[in-house]
Every structure is written in structure tokens, then in C-alpha cells.
């Protein structure tokens, strides 16, 4: 393949490998990561990855905040799909507390989670196209993302840093016109999906750059801890939503696309198909859900309504203690995992029985992907780094915590 073109020239010219810094701020890598590449001509023979430019001390900060105060920090992990982080964390704490949330809360969490997944995949596909030169595809994808963010903003109040999840429930119910707005949004999203397919999937340049590059073998994927789309593109059908259903994923029909070659093209196609599947999930959820409460009424967790807080001492004490001391989570530890935008997002939480976490560890799929990414680059061309890095969708906030 690529090596064949180069071999004869290598034999004639005495050359040294060149060390190139693909430094932390690079226009074609979305996220601050530094690669020290050793190049022989255009071929990457060694790659050293350096992450941590966005390390903000998430885990240390969480140890000094109450359980509920951690939610804004979780927003800023995978910041293109913040709702998935919120709900993943809420699920972990609810397991430690041993409380069940009402059904409607689970339906809404599924819907909002899938909206976040739409946002994540649209960003990845769009940015991927952009970095390969397809500006139009990028603009379409971003239009789709804007529509999704409009919906999210209507429900949660913010586009990106939403802090919508709560322990034992949610901040607020869906807006009354949510179904209507979704009906419009989904039409446009399906159009965007089709258009992007037309623009990219059979585009000669796109195919040449994406097919056969950044190949992950199933063994390498599993060994290097890859999950999510990266692993599914290799043919290993592992999706937390199917294998260990949580929220309402067990009650809706959806397919999980699985690739064959493990190259960039397969990851792109998987994400494109997951867009369609997410839309399918949201449709079914909206059809099946019924009105009801969205927050648990467990007195250890639930804040009383404001009129009770201001007018009764019981409500006042309850609100006061839960806010200032935090929800008292029984001592113990739990590892709770959900399907994030990039793979299995796990929260390993240790509680010492008080209102503040003792430890929260985020099993961030992006950091683990970066651990093995040198194997995807080495042996390939310099130009292949761009599509590979795009399709694995490393999000800086999640990688560096």
C-alpha cells in the first residue's frame, strides 16, 4: 500500500527520521493533545502521546463538594454530551443510596440522554468532515446540533453545561410542547442525515482517506480497553445499553450498528447509523411515557416544595440539611457504568457515609482511547492521523478530567 511507494526512495536517500510536534494547539485536532511524531517521510514510525492539558482536577474538586454539587462538574467532562454524564453519575449515587426513581424520570433520562448522544455524534461527524476539507457537511451537522441544543435548552435551560440530572430525579419535567418541537427537529435531522450521507459516504476523497486507515483489530481494541463505537467498529458487539440495560433501554427497540473492518470508515458509518437509532429511541420513548412525578420522594434525598420550605419548619429543616450537609449517602463503594458518547462511561464512587463523596473516579473512555492511540497512528501516514483522531472522538474534558 502506502509503504510500497516509499520503499525504493528510502533505499536511495540517506535520511533520518524527523521528529514533529503535533502540538497541543493544532487546528485539525479538536482537543488539546500533544503528539510527538517520529516521521520517516510521510510515515509515522513512532508516536508519543501527551495528554493532560485540560486537567482541571475534577476528582479532587468533587471530594470537597456535596453529592449534588458534583453535577456541574460532571457537565464538563464530556462536554458535548453533558446529559449522559449527569445521568451516569446520578445512577451511581442512586445505587449507593438504594433508591428507585419514578418511571417518568427514567423515560426522560433516556430521551435526554439520546439527545445528547445525537449532539455528540453530530459534532464528531461534522468536525471529521471539516478536518478533511468538507465544510458543507460540517455546517449541516452543526445545524443539526443547533436544533438538538435548542431542544435541550428548552428543557434544561442551557445548551452545553446543563446540570439537569439530580440525585433521585431531574431538575424539571419536559416542556409541554416537547413532542411538537421534536416532531419538527427529527424531520430536519433525518434530512441532515441523508444529506451528509450523500455528501460524504461515497465521496472519493472521503473514502480514500477514511477506508483502511486507523485500523483497530478486535483483540487490540479489547485489550486496550476501547469501548463504544471504537470497539463496535471492529466487530465486537458490546453496548452497555443492550448488555446491561438501564433507564428504559430495555423497553425500547433499537439496533446497535457493528462494523467489520475497524477502520475510520466503519466508525463513521457506525456513528451515522447511531444517529438514526437515537431518533428511533426518542420516538418510542415519547410514545410510551405517561405523566407522573419525576423525582423520588425519599426524604433523605427529595427537596420539599418551596411553599413547604418557606411555611413549615419541617420543610425548612429538610431543605436546609439536604442542601448544606448534602444528601447523606450510606458508606460503601459502587462501580456504575452507562454508555457515554464515546464508550463506556463509568463512575467508581466511594462514600464514607457523609454528605460529601470520599472519592469519585471517572472511567473516561477518551483517556483510555488515548492510551492506545499510538498503535493506530504508527505505521500509517501523517495525513491519516487527522481522520483517525476525529473518528475516535476524544473529548478533552473527559480525557483530562
Amino acid at each position, binding site marked *: 500500500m502506502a509503504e510500497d511507494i516509499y520503499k525504493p526512495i528510502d533505499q536511495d536517500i540517506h535520511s533520518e527520521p524527523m521528529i514533529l510536534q503535533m502540538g497541543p494547539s493544532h487546528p485539525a485536532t479538536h482537543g488539546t493533545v500533544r503528539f510527538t511524531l517520529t516521521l520517516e517521510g510521510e510515515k509515522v514510525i513512532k508516536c508519543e502521546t501527551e495528554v493532560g492539558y485540560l486537567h482541571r482536577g475534577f476528582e479532587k474538586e468533587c471530594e470537597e463538594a456535596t453529592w449534588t454539587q458534583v453535577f456541574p462538574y460532571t457537565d464538563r467532562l464530556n462536554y458535548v454530551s453533558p446529559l449522559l454524564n449527569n445521568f451516569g453519575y446520578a445512577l451511581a449515587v442512586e445505587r449507593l443510596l438504594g433508591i428507585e426513581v419514578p418511571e417518568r424520570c427514567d423515560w426522560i433520562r433516556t430521551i435526554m440522554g439520546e439527545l445528547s448522544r445525537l449532539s455528540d455524534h453530530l459534532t464528531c461527524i461534522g468536525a471529521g468532515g471539516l478536518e478533511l476539507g468538507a465544510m458543507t457537511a460540517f455546517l449541516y451537522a452543526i445545524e443539526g446540533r443547533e436544533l438538538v441544543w435548542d431542544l435541550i435548552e428548552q428543557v434544561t435551560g442551557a445548551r452545553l453545561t446543563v446540570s439537569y440530572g439530580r440525585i433521585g430525579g431531574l431538575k424539571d419535567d419536559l416542556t409541554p410542547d416537547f413532542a411538537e418541537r421534536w416532531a419538527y427537529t427529527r424531520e430536519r435531522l433525518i434530512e441532515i442525515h441523508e444529506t451528509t450521507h450523500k455528501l460524504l459516504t461515497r465521496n472519493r476523497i472521503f473514502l480514500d482517506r477514511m477506508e483502511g486507515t486507523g485500523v483497530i483489530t478486535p483483540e487490540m481494541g479489547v485489550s486496550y480497553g476501547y469501548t463504544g463505537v471504537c470497539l463496535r467498529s471492529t466487530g465486537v458487539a458490546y453496548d452497555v445499553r443492550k448488555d446491561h440495560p438501564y433507564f428504559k433501554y430495555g423497553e425500547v427497540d433499537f439496533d446497535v450498528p457493528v462494523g467489520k473492518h475497524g477502520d475510520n470508515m466503519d466508525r463513521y458509518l457506525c456513528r451515522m447509523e447511531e444517529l438514526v437509532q437515537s431518533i428511533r429511541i426518542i420516538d418510542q420513548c415519547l410514545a410510551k411515557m405517561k405523566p407522573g412525578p419525576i423525582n423520588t420522594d425519599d426524604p433523605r434525598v427529595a427537596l420539599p416544595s418551596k411553599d*413547604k420550605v418557606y411555611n413549615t419548619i*419541617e420543610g425548612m*429543616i429538610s431543605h436546609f440539611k439536604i442542601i448544606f450537609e448534602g444528601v447523606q449517602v450510606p458508606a460503601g463503594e459502587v462501580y456504575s457504568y452507562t454508555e457515554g458518547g464515546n464508550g463506556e462511561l463509568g463512575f467508581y464512587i466511594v462514600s464514607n457515609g457523609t454528605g460529601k463523596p470520599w472519592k469519585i473516579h471517572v472511567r473516561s473512555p477518551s483517556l483510555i482511547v488515548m492510551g492506545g492511540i499510538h498503535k493506530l497512528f504508527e505505521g500509517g501516514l501523517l495525513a491519516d492521523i487527522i481522520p483517525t483522531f476525529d473518528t475516535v472522538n476524544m473529548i478533552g474534558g473527559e480525557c483530562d478530567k
Partner: protein
Amino acid sequence: MPKVTINGTEIEVEKGTTILRAAAQAGYEVPHFCYHPALSIPANCRMCLVEVEGSWKLQPSCYSQVSDGMVVNTKSERVIKAQKAVLEFILINHPVDCPICDQAGECKLQDYYMAYDAQESRLRTEKTAKVKVFPIGPEVLYDGERCILCTRCVRFCEEITGTNELTIIQRGDAAEIRPFPGRSLDNPYSVCTADICPVGALTSRDFRFKCRVWLLSSTDSVCTGCSNGCNIHLEHFRNEVQRYRPRFNPDVNDYWMCDAGRLTYKAIHTDRLTRPMSNGAELNWHGVSGTAADKLGRAIEDKGTFGFVVSPQASCEDLFLARRFAKEVLGTERIYVGGNPDGFEDDFLIKADKNPNTRGLQTIFGHEGELRDFGALIDDIESGAVTSLYMMETQIPVATEESARFVSALDKLDLFVLQAQHHGELSTKAHIALPACSHAETEGTFVNFDGIAQEFDRAFAPLGESLPHWQIFMRLARAMNHKLTYTFVHQIRKEMFEDSAATEEASQTPAE
């Protein structure tokens, strides 16, 4: 020794133990408001009711004593219902004051509601209104609406201080705590009633609205108001002491401390000398060490006239190094005792000696004739027998006219070095003023009037550029080419205890 089974756990207790104490021994908390280990048991709040097998009615566990073979359940359905009922009744007329109540964060009602009640209010009428800011005493305010009439304060005034100021007036839902006509809650321990009040009915005027309690960090320390050495929780926020709260010590102060001692925390942040000064000009440590070393060196050559004032306000470790500095570096034999003059004394906790470490000072400078009276110092300066003076702390143990004499006599001195916490007349007169830090900013030991040595911990870093006394002595010694090297307080402590034979009798460490 009777055996009792509590929640399935069998334990053996002393005869006469109440069920509540036995449950605590077995590791089970029984909620209570009116019971206090140091006061008599009225059993009026009914929060501690537990189920005793064989008895149809629930028993107040604070009062009932265990009998051999008794089976107790503190978590049965009946007990839980009773706890919810008691809390509901107490909360019916309780005002919705948490946002403005000082007790929030350390309030028994809040804690027990979350742990044992957690039910919504069933009240559909107005709550009873009472006077909310009643000045019940010069240091304490009373809020009638918050009061749950547990009578801890009334019993405190009857049994601990013996002053009998308080009583309950009116009855039913109009009942309140008031002082007897013509009286006021003005005994010297009045703020202790605010400590023991389980709710925010009695609050300290000094601490009112000052700081929320969950923001406070607590350090174990010792009060420096008098030689009783009451153990305290020194509570601080952002490197500023907000209040003292008594710490339980059965050998020294039990659960109590006096109001005057409580207010001594203000001295830690008032008029502090925080930078080394020389004749009114601020310097840094590097500069002043050199200057001090020069001046002291020259003064020492003039043998026989160097006076050294040690203070019973300083810790044992500070004084140990003061002794080494005075003897080895300055070579002086003239050691005078400073400190606060005597004051009010009573038969409970307040001692006349208003210095925390007099016994410690006497133990360290234990040899015959080593210590001289402060009055003698004033005479010596005036007569010229002392021409250079190194003084620890600014307190002077003489009456006002005498202290005025002292201050004017200072003009006669060739060299006056002051090592103290506070600004004042003396620091402006000093040729060199070295900033020392308070007991809140270092660790150390005080020996109280009874000979009990008590350690205190460090709450925050020394303010400004001040340093503990012992570190200042070390710096000057080093600048004068003497070796006094210690890195940690415990090294000094070890040497101190090994060194002085007399400290063996004073080495009883207090209960934590």
C-alpha cells in the same frame, strides 16, 4: 453487675446505669433533649422513650435504670412512632427560623428531624408568637418561640452555678424561660446556657450572626484567660478565630467555661504586632536578626546589667527556650516574671491568676532564687542596675500606677528588646520589637494551677510575619552564633521533660 440486652446486643453495665447510658455503651444512639450528663434528670422532653419488654408503657431511658435481664428495643415500631410524635409536637410551634438562627448546623432539632422524623407538617393554623429577642442576660439572648422548655438552662443555674436566676413562667403553649423578677442571667458562666441549649433559644450575643457553624474549623486548644486552663474548641474560619467553645475535661473544667475566658479570643486579632520593628520602622526578619544580634552582643559585654522578663503567658516550650537563651546566649542571671496581674476569682472555675502557664514557668525556672519579682525590675531600672532589657510579652503584673512608672523608666534603658504579640506603649518604646504569635498559631503546653500539663494544637499559620517565641529565640541565637537547634515542638517537649526532674509531678496529661 446487671446484664441488659439492647437491640439484641447483650452487655454488662454498672449498677445504677440508665438505659440511655447503657445504649450508648452498646453503640446505639438514643435521641434526647432535656438530658445532660452533668445536670439532674427531669425526663420532660420524652424524646428518649424506648420499649422495655414487660412494660406496657414506653420508658424514658434517661431516667430508668437497667435491671438484670432487662430487654430493651430502641428501634421498635412503637418507639419510632413515639419519636415522630414527640418531634411533631415540638415542631408545631417552632418558628421557621433556620436561615437566621445561629444554631443551624449544630441544632438538635434539625439533626433529629432528619434522622428520626422526616414527615411533613400537619399544622393548619398559625403558630404561637412570643418575644423573639429577649435580652435575658448581658451575654445571652433568648428567643421564646424556639424554646422547647427542656429546662437545661434552669437546671444549670440551679445546680452548677448555684445562682438560680431562671425559671419557667406561664404555662401551656405560652410557657417561656425568664429570669426571676428583678434578676438577670448575669452569672459569670451565663454563655454556658447557650452551649447546652439544644436549639437556638439561648444564643451568645458575642457570636450572634458572626459565622455559620459549618464553616468553622475546630482545633483543640486551651483557654489563656486564667490559670485554670479550661479546655476549649478553638473555632476559626479563614484564619480568624470566631469563638471558643468548652471542651469536656472531667479533671479541669467538665463541660463549662467562664464568659470572660470565652472573650479572650478577641486578643488574638486585636492590635497584633505582625512585623519586626526597629525604633518604629518596619523591617523583615533577616534585617532585624542582624540588628538585634549586634545590639544584644554589645549589651552583653556590659556584664551584670541585662534583665530578662519571662511571661507566664508563653507555653512551656517557649519558656524552655527562653531559659536557654537567657542563660547560654545572653548570660544573664536577672530573670523577672511578667504576666497579667491578679483579678477576680470564684470557687468554681475562675482563678485569680490571669495567666495560663504560671506553674509551667515555675517548673522550668525551678531553681531557688532564679526568678525575681517584677516590682524589683522597676526599681532596678530606675536605679541603673539594669541597663538592657529583653522582655517577653507586654503584660505587666503590677497596678496601674506602678506600670506607668515602668513605662517611663524604660527611657533610661540603653537597649529594650520586646518580643510580643501586641502593639502598644511598650512596642513603640522598644528599640527592637519582634512579633510573636499567639497560642492559636503554634503548638505548645500550658501547666494549669493544679499542675496538669495540657497540650494545645495549632489552628492556623502565624499572622503576618510573627513567629512562635521558641523560633524567635532560635533565630537570634543563630544570628549570635549559638546553636539552639530544634525543628519541631515535640523535640523541645521531649528535652524539657527529660531535663527537669520537677516536671515529673506535672506530667499528667489530660483526658482528651
